[in-house]
């Protein structure tokens, strides 16, 4: 009988093309919005997670300063004690669960070769930076293994820097100027793109002691600790804090695990996704009211037909079924069209912006279709009940 109801509803819907099209359109827009917006939100979340995991999720960062004592973001404002190379060496001596413990100092400087010059981010670090940040060297080699406190005048440059400073030439072995410093290019990084918001193809990496002297800094920007397994993260953090507290006579460093950063970003973006879903839901509600309106008009128009069906033996339940099926179909067709349009839109978006892996989560697709059906059912109930309650004689006489 359901198939018959669908057939019957289809004949009614196709009899009023414009009205049907408009209310289908309303639902389609709502569903397309939900699909596209959740895809965007989810895409952003995936993008951030991907960015963080690309450098390893068993990485922790040690920053000078402590949130509680300074009242500001760690690494900003008055820092009681510097994070020094001595601290780094102490950590290396004591933390055995760590695979690499890497110093990082940072600054921006003008790098030039002949007439060509470019503003770049300069990172001072140690040879282990390569493994800790999962980078690769395309030409030459990375920073030499030597005493971290001694800085050699050597640099490893990113692909873009190499291309810009040495167009059509070999960069390896050439001397560049970084600010007032002359450095020999000993390696060129393989193309990697953006990592944690830093364009790694546009950086210059120098030995950490050189970096600190170059920027006249006594403190490291941070120390990266890569542990062997993510389960060691928390204990490594505790150890770092304990060792540095003992060395500084107070707890003045902050230890952030990659896991915590990912989960913070992930939850922020998850919230964003829900906000987008809510916006979509509003447009769906409007569409639902549209469906209800159309169905009320339909019931009013087909009063005589309802009376006839009752005279021919249709029960109240049958009439309710006929109009509910019609409302659900109206919303369902809108849902399918909306889904296709939404997916098409997402496809276009990822084609234009390949960096954002926007794809609607499966639950959103299933929910969108289910939602459309429930929408039709919910907003169809009032008109369908009105139809079912009609008195057959009154309905036949259109009174």
């Amino acid at each position, binding site marked *: 009988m359901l198939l018959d109801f669908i057939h*019957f509803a289809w004949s009614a819907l196709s009899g009023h093309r414009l009205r049907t099209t408009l209310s289908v359109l309303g639902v389609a827009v709502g569903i397309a919005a939900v699909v596209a917006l959740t895809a965007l939100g989810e895409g952003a979340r995936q993008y951030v997670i991907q960015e963080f995991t690309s450098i390893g999720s068993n990485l922790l960062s040690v920053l000078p300063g402590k949130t509680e004592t300074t009242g500001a973001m760690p690494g900003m404002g008055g820092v009681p004690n510097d994070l020094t190379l001595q601290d780094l060496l102490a950590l290396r001596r004591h933390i055995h669960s760590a695979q690499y413990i890497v110093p990082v100092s940072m600054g921006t400087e003008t790098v030039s070769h002949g007439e060509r010059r470019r503003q770049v981010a300069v990172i001072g670090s140690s040879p282990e930076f390569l493994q800790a940040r999962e980078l690769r060297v395309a030409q030459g080699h990375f920073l030499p293994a030597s005493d971290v406190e001694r800085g050699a005048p050597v640099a490893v440059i990113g692909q873009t820097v190499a291309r810009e400073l040495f167009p059509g030439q070999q960069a390896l072995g050439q001397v560049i100027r970084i600010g007032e410093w002359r450095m020999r290019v000993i390696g060129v990084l393989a193309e990697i793109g953006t990592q944690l918001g830093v364009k790694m193809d546009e950086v210059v990496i120098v030995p950490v002691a050189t970096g600190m002297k170059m920027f006249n800094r006594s403190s490291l920007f941070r120390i990266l600790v890569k542990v062997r397994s993510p389960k060691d993260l928390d204990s490594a953090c505790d150890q770092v804090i304990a060792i540095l507290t003992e060395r500084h006579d107070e707890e003045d460093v902050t230890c952030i695990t990659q896991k915590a950063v990912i989960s913070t970003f992930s939850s922020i973006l998850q919230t964003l996704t829900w906000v987008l879903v809510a916006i979509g839901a509003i447009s769906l509600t409007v569409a639902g009211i549209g469906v209800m309106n159309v169905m009320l008009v339909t019931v009013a128009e087909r009063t005589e037909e309802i009376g006839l069906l009752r005279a*021919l*033996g*249709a029960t109240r339940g049958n009439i309710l079924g006929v109009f509910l099926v019609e409302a659900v179909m109206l919303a369902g067709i809108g849902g399918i069209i909306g889904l296709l349009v939404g997916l098409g839109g997402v496809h276009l978006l990822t084609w234009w912006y390949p960096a954002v892996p926007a794809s609607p989560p499966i639950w959103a697709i299933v929910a969108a279709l289910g939602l459309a059906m429930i929408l039709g059912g919910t907003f169809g109930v009032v008109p369908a009940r009105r139809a079912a309650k009609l008195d057959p004689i009154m309905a036949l006489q259109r009174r």
Partner: protein
Amino acid sequence: MIELQHIAKSYEVGGQPIYALRDITETIQSGDYVAIVGPSGSGKSTLLNVIGCLLRPSEGAYLFNDEDVSQLDDHALSHLRQFQIGFIFQSFHLVPRLTALGNVALPMVFAGVPSSERHRRAKDALESVGLSDRAHHRPNQLSVGQRQRVVIARAIIMQPSLVLADEPTGNLDTHSGQQIMELLESLNAKGLTIIVVTHDPNVARRANRIIVLTDGQIVKRLKGEELSSTSMPFS
């Protein structure tokens, strides 16, 4: 067999009951052909609707094949209408978007008859009213006489025992009206009980019996041939 025992139908208007029917007692045997006549507002259509189980009587008992249907619930009444009663309306009440075939098959949809059987039976019914060549036409592509024949095909599709016709020739020309009456007579000849409400003495006198209603009451009972062809017993 239809037995009406002291049937009354009243409506509340301004707190006062207004009687559309009062104290109707009548027995209609299976296979009978009865015409209900009376002036406008005499309660003819109300009586037909009560007999057709579209309206519940306010008082009295209505026995349909020995079952008191005045106490049945909506679902059971729907079932009764579906399988036992066929309706023919003055204004046809055809679904405009469905073809003649679709309209004839409509009662079977709610009876759960499989689609292939519906198609076959609807075609046969259309053939029996001489419209097999109009099966795929919509109502607006048919003449009024053809529309009423579609309605008759729809009324008999569930093989009911009773056919109720409310002014079946009211919208038709003489020739079409004649064809419809012949169709009704042929159905009666096959054993169906026919009850016709009419204003037309020529239609009424073709029935075996005539019930004359005035002010919601039966005032006279006649045999069909006793009726004059030019005037009604109440005019």
